[in-house]
């Protein structure tokens, strides 16, 4: 019996306790209940297809019982497997109940045998795979690989929409600088001041403000308006500075300017 090899006696002497501890390591070494079942089944020394599942279930249940007796902590899946095998055992032992639904004991047993055989087969081929000649151990790749010069051609692309959006972006930016856009038709007060300062010296008597308008700004109404406003504002500034005097006889009458006599 396989369980004999694993579990000697139930009475706990010091040596047996030590053995029990060693067994914990052993259980840890198993990769789950299926692994244990596979190990147990090997002791039957028959083709896995001819294995006695009933016998195997009994062996496993003994294994679990002994483990419990030795206070070996078993993971839940070991216990789940034990419960399932106990169920399987009862199905195999009792005559089939025709009213009962679900798979028969034979079907379940056959599937377990298949699972064990498949796991064993996978282990066998895994071993064969690892026994193959391996690169870097048995055969070798080129040691001095030549660099493949990568000629990377970078193609840049842009769509018409990109182009349009780019242009619109640039142009929209311009719109947020209105003074740049509008200056063409704007005569600023600074410009008017610059123009008037050198002229006022010659204006000894009352002179109409329109004579101070810059050349070429009189015809276009837009430009004339801007120039008139700038010149008027500049005049007020010059009056404030005390360089000039300004007068208007009545509403909408011509505005007249003259140099302020500094001695007064």
């Amino acid at each position, binding site marked *: 019996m396989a369980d004999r090899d694993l579990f000697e006696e139930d009475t706990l002497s010091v040596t047996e306790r030590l053995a029990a501890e060693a067994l914990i390591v052993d259980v840890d070494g198993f990769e789950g209940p299926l692994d244990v079942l596979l190990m147990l089944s090997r002791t039957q020394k028959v083709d896995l297809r001819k294995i006695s599942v009933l016998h195997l279930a009994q062996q496993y249940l003994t294994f679990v019982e002994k483990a419990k007796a030795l206070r070996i902590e078993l993971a839940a899946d070991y216990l789940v497997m034990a419960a399932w095998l106990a169920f399987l055992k009862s199905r195999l032992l009792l005559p089939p109940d025709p009213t009962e639904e679900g798979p028969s004991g034979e079907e379940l047993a056959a*599937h377990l045998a298949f699972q064990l055989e498949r796991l064993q*087969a996978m282990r066998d081929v895994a071993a064969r795979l690892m026994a193959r000649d391996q690169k*870097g151990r048995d055969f070798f790749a*080129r040691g001095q690989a*030549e660099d493949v010069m990568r000629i990377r051609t970078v193609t840049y692309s842009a769509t018409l929409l990109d182009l349009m959006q780019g242009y619109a972006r640039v142009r929209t930016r311009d719109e947020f600088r209105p003074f740049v856009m509008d200056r063409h038709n704007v005569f600023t007060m600074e410009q008017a001041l610059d123009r008037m300062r050198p002229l006022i010296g010659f204006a000894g008597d009352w002179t109409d403000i329109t004579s101070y308008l810059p050349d070429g700004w009189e015809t276009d109404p837009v430009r004339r308006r801007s120039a008139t406003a700038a010149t008027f504002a500049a005049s007020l500034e010059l009056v404030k500075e005390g360089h000039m005097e300004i007068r208007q006889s009545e509403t909408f009458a011509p505005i007249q300017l003259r140099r302020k006599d500094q001695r007064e």
Partner: protein
Amino acid sequence: MSEEQAEDTPQEESLFEAPPMGEQERMVEAVLFASAEPVTVRELEARMPHGCDPAEALAHLRKRYEGRGVRVVRVGDAWAIRTAPDLGFLMQKETVEVRKLSRAAIETLAIIAYHQPCTRAEIEEIRGVSVSRGTIDQLLEMEWIRFGRRKMTPGRPVTFVVTETFLDHFGLETARDLPGLKELRAAGLLENRPPPGTIPLGQRDEDEDELNSPESGQTELFED
């Protein structure tokens, strides 16, 4: 562009005609020798002058190197030159220490190789234990496995398949050359048999057929 390249080769007159087969063989030889990684026929075609037939040149080259110190080997859809395995003893200097794989990793790898495309649930069902994240990660990191197509089963789980790097490492031409594959299939051990009493997934067979059909992944062009 390839015409321009052809001008540089000895076959100046062959602007519209491919170079002679002997010359093509030399080219394939040069490219395979230069690369440590397997080179696909497609890449050969892209690098060789227009009109070349790298597949045929490969067949010639393979024959030429039979029994020599290096061999022309097929790796999936690609080709490589590798030293003859019997001369491994000369290469202690080049030997690379392969990271020891755990038993779980080796088994997981074998299950993926023989059952691909294979889900994590299938690996767990076969091994009877859960697969740790680290095991899969390690195999992915080594580039021995990669993600395959998702399965058309509920939850659309991801699948794993083995890579060309895997084939290259174990000197396999295709995944079909895995040792013992035919016997396992004949024994029905590669079938995905659902436990009795559960609803069969009904998808596995399709996928398996695909894996084995000549129309799948690996082309038949280079079968001897």
